[in-house]
């Protein structure tokens, strides 16, 4: 489902000063897997996520996502790739002037889905995330956890094969985070591949899923049923 082959990405920082974000990274994530990507800030987690959505291209190496080689993917086909990927943000990124229902429907509207499909699919996914009651609420009327559920619903409404979550519990308290993780787990069980970048040690330790640890742009650990870290 996801394959990186000797991927290197560096950022220019004025003059000859370069920052290596990922260095010769090779890894593979299979269909239906649940993977944590952990590591301190600046370890390359964000770059990893941005490469998967083709917001950025690697300087070197190849990336395959959902059967597409991103290096040779034409710019106009990038939207097609992104329809296979759901993206959950740390800060939810809900549109403040739209209701819960409209926020979720928006993701379908802008890729040209018809009214009938939207009206069928949105209630389904709102039920999945447990927000049927709140479908007419505005985002500011919701708690952080509920907002993140809306964000997950929006990411999943198009039935993507891959769900990328960038610190989805970063802005939530521990008990709310558990709810979100249960939700992501449920989505994973429907067959979607979930990749989650996180700092949250408790969550990683309690889920016992595959853990890929990055440090200074290198994979220092790749462990099935792992925990957040050795000494910490």
């Amino acid at each position: 489902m996801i394959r990186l082959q000797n991927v290197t990405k560096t950022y220019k920082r004025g003059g000859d000063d370069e920052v290596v974000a990922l260095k010769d990274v090779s890894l593979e994530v299979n269909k239906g897997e649940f993977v944590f990507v952990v590591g301190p800030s600046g370890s390359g987690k964000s770059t990893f996520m941005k490469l998967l959505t083709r917001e950025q291209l690697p300087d070197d190496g190849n990336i395959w996502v959902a059967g597409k080689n991103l290096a040779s993917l034409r710019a106009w086909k990038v939207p097609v790739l992104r329809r296979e990927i759901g993206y959950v943000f740390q800060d939810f990124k809900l549109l403040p002037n739209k209701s819960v229902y409209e926020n979720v429907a928006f993701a379908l509207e802008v890729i040209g889905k018809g009214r009938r499909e939207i009206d069928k699919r949105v209630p389904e996914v709102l039920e999945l995330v447990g927000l049927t009651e709140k479908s007419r609420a505005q985002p500011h009327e919701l708690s952080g956890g509920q907002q993140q559920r809306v964000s997950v619903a929006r990411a999943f409404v198009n039935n993507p094969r891959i769900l990328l979550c960038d610190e989805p519990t970063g802005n939530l308290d521990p008990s709310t985070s558990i709810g979100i993780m249960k939700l992501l787990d449920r989505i994973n069980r429907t067959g979607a591949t979930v990749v989650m970048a996180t700092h949250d040690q408790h969550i990683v330790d309690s889920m016992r899923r595959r853990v890929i640890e990055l440090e200074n742009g290198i994979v220092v650990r790749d462990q099935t049923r792992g925990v957040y870290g050795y000494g910490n």
Partner: protein
Amino acid sequence: MARWRYLLQEAFIGLRRNLMMTFAVILSVTVSLTLLGASLLLSDQVDLATDDWVGRVEVSIFLCDGRVCPAITPEQQDELREELEAQEVVAEVFYESKQEAYERFTELFADQPSLVESIDPDILPASFRVRLENPNLFNVIADQFGAFPGVEEIVDQREVLNQFLRFTNVVRNAALVVAAIQLIAAGVLIANTIRVAAFARREQTSIMRLVGASNWYIRLPFVLEGVIAGLVGALVSWGLLYATVPRVAGNLAQDIELMPFIGVAQVLAIGPWLLIAGTGIAAVASVLALRRFLDV
């Protein structure tokens, strides 16, 4: 259907959100297109007058009256007339006596009595006025009759017309240049407005990008926003020209009987060009403004 409703809705939200900017854009498009339209109409007017005049333009063959050259004899005059009428390029020959020349002069400058008074009725020369089949063949006449005994000077009235045309061309080109500069300014203003609009909705567009909305779907609301403002500006300028130009031309036509004037038909005819220019510049400016901003 639903798509277009969404796109238009977003465009109007953008226009309303920043009313002052929208107003400034419409105003600047209106000013530039009004100038453009005015210069197009001036050019129409010149063409109309020229067409009318070219048919009437004559070659004047001034006859010697003894002041600068020996006065033409009646025999020479008859011979000259016969020769002229025999020419293939000549359509018509009129004779204008000194007296008739003076009368025409007083008529032409009736509103300047002091000028008329300063002219001695005898000073204006008699002439043959020759209308040509093709006004461009002036040289044939000039070459052939320039040295004819009793001919003082041959004047192509087209020269006079050309001077007038040169003047109107300068006016028209100046208006065009100002219109072009204004249009560029309007384009820059539109580009800036669209950039501001895109920035205000960057959250929304970043979501759209990540859920896989196509590029044109993300950009079109902004482009439409610019195009709508451009279109409104074009319509306003068209309306302004429609309301003023036929009236002004009508007033002039009453005072100046010398030439025909443009009317409603010409103003209507330039409308499409104004719309194309207004929406075109807006579309180009919007697309350029978004080029780097919303790249995938």
